[in-house]
């Protein structure tokens, strides 16, 4: 049976970009943006499921107006259509505010299941999909590395990796699943996909279109406030332990135990 699958995506700075900070925010000028890699794993699974069972994949992304280019990357790899949630009022939101926007949009989109990244690599919040699940009163399974749909199409079996063990969960659909590394890398777009991406529909929704109160979204709706943002401290240089193997090993064990407290 065919499935309508939503892939929740986020636009994040390329992990190879050099991040600079100004006024407690990341300077976005000149940054190269990509799809969040965890979201990509979810998108790949969505594409595979539609290849196997039929249906369609709708990419949903909440981000500024110039995120269209990133959305088209999802269309180039095979998403059928996309929804761009964009409004100056959405900017500066925390996980709760963003989840409100996504949940409002998902009430307008028919779906059987939703894929999302387990977290996004820019802020590593790992809260948005769970909050969306709560707002929509849907079951959710996070950090999925293996996924199969039951033959009747009503339930899904998920495998999660927990402390080196495999945790198997089943849930009824509709539900939200979040992707962990290992679920599968996103395919390359084909040239045909790239050239065809412009012809696929992207629906734009702002706060008014979703009937959202602007006081409940974006910076205005955020409970979470950034007090200070600073780059992580530079990594100290590596240490070379001199001496013969026996004394060096003893010294290494001492340092691991007393300085880095790993053992």
């Amino acid at each position, binding site marked *: 049976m065919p499935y309508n699958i939503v892939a929740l995506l986020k636009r994040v700075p390329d992990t190879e970009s050099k991040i600079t900070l100004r006024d407690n925010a990341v300077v976005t000028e000149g940054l190269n943006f990509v799809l969040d890699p965890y979201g990509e794993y979810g998108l790949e699974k969505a594409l595979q499921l539609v290849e196997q069972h039929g249906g369609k994949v709708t990419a949903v992304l909440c981000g500024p107006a110039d995120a269209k280019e990133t959305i088209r990357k999802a269309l180039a790899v095979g998403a059928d259509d996309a929804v761009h949630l964009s409004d100056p009022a959405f900017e500066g939101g925390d996980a709760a505010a963003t989840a409100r926007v996504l949940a409002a949009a998902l009430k307008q989109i028919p779906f059987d299941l939703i894929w999302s990244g387990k977290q996004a690599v820019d802020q590593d919040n790992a809260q948005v999909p769970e909050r969306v699940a709560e707002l929509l009163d849907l079951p959710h399974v996070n950090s999925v590395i293996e996924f199969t749909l039951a033959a009747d199409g009503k339930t899904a079996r998920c495998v999660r990796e927990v402390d080196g063990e495999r945790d198997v969960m089943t849930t009824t659909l509709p539900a939200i699943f979040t992707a962990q590394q290992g679920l599968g890398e996103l395919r390359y*777009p084909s040239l*045909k996909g790239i050239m065809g991406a412009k012809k696929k529909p992207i629906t734009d929704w702002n706060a008014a279109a979703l009937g959202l109160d602007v006081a409940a979204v974006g910076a205005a709706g955020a409970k979470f406030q950034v007090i200070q943002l600073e780059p992580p401290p530079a990594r100290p240089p590596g240490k070379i332990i001199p001496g013969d193997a026996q004394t060096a090993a003893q010294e290494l064990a001492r340092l691991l135990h007393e300085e880095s407290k790993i053992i």
Partner: protein
Amino acid sequence: MDFTLTEEQGAIRDLARAFAQKEIAPYAADWDRTHEFPAHVYEKMGAQGLMGLPFPEAYGGAGADAIATALAIEEISKADGSIGLTYAAHMGLGAAPIFLFGNEEQKREWLAPLAQGKGLGALSLTEPSGGSDLAGSVKTTARLDGDEWVLNGSKLYVTSGKVARSIIVLCRTAENQGHRGLSLIIVPHGAPGLMIGKLESKMGLHTSLTTQVFFEECRVPRENLLGEAGQGFRYTMQVLDGGRIGIGAMALGLGEAALDASVKYAQQREAFGKPIAEFQAIQHMLADSAMELEAARLLIYKAAALKQQGKKFSVEAAQAKLFATEAADRVCWKAIQIHGGAGYLTDFPVERYYRDNRLLLIGEGTSEVQRMIIARDLLANAYE
């Protein structure tokens, strides 16, 4: 004037880069050493739609523009010069003439499989009796016998000659007519009387399969004539104009790879108690390389943009090819200098970039031929 890439151009560059860095770059040094032809890479490139990048979708191509095509060649070459050359020659020499001058049936039969990545294309021009003097040196003949062309002669330096699905041959179809007696004829792999010579042993570009090709009463159907008889030289000049953008893009990719390696090495290697990147002598080399590559990039993209707009681009393509290949030669030279003794070892990639780039100052028109093209245009316009 806007120097930003379109979204599509950017997406194609990103795809080519991701593909090249994952599927090609990690193995390039091995292939260079073993000379093993990575056939599977071309199959994968075909599956991605890369092999028919600039050709219309109707023939299985992607319909990308000339700048996007140059970007893809640049990214592939950055990972592996041999694959870059095979790729550039496939599209620019083996397939482009069929697209430009072929009729509908020829495009379906010969262009479509190449565009879909079902085989590599080749073009054979040079003969033992001469290279740059193309019009005067072509001795390979083709005569009509009933419904067939019968070819006799031999060709040198045929890129991908050993594996090509089809080889387009520049040959003489009329005597005593100089360059007006030349034509292009498509010779399929396995045609009776077609013999592939031994693989040439080269300084670099080790997995680009360069061969001699011999024709002994080689028979192909009459329909395999491309365009009009007697137009082969003019067609060839037009094809080479486009091919030169590809060669320039290839040099740019190799130069970028050499500069990237240099920057990385200069920051890691220490001498006199600090990274050598802190010495002005090294910094000047890096700065000059970056500047020269940027200039090459602008020349290449400009020639490609003119081509895309359907304007004249012969001189710009010659300038782009000449400058980019010679700039890359200097950049690779400096890369080895920055690496010092390590740069001379095959453990580091820069000597490979240097060897691979060296051909680009020769193939598809030597540097001297490019200067001739540029000067001729300059002088012709000056006297108008």
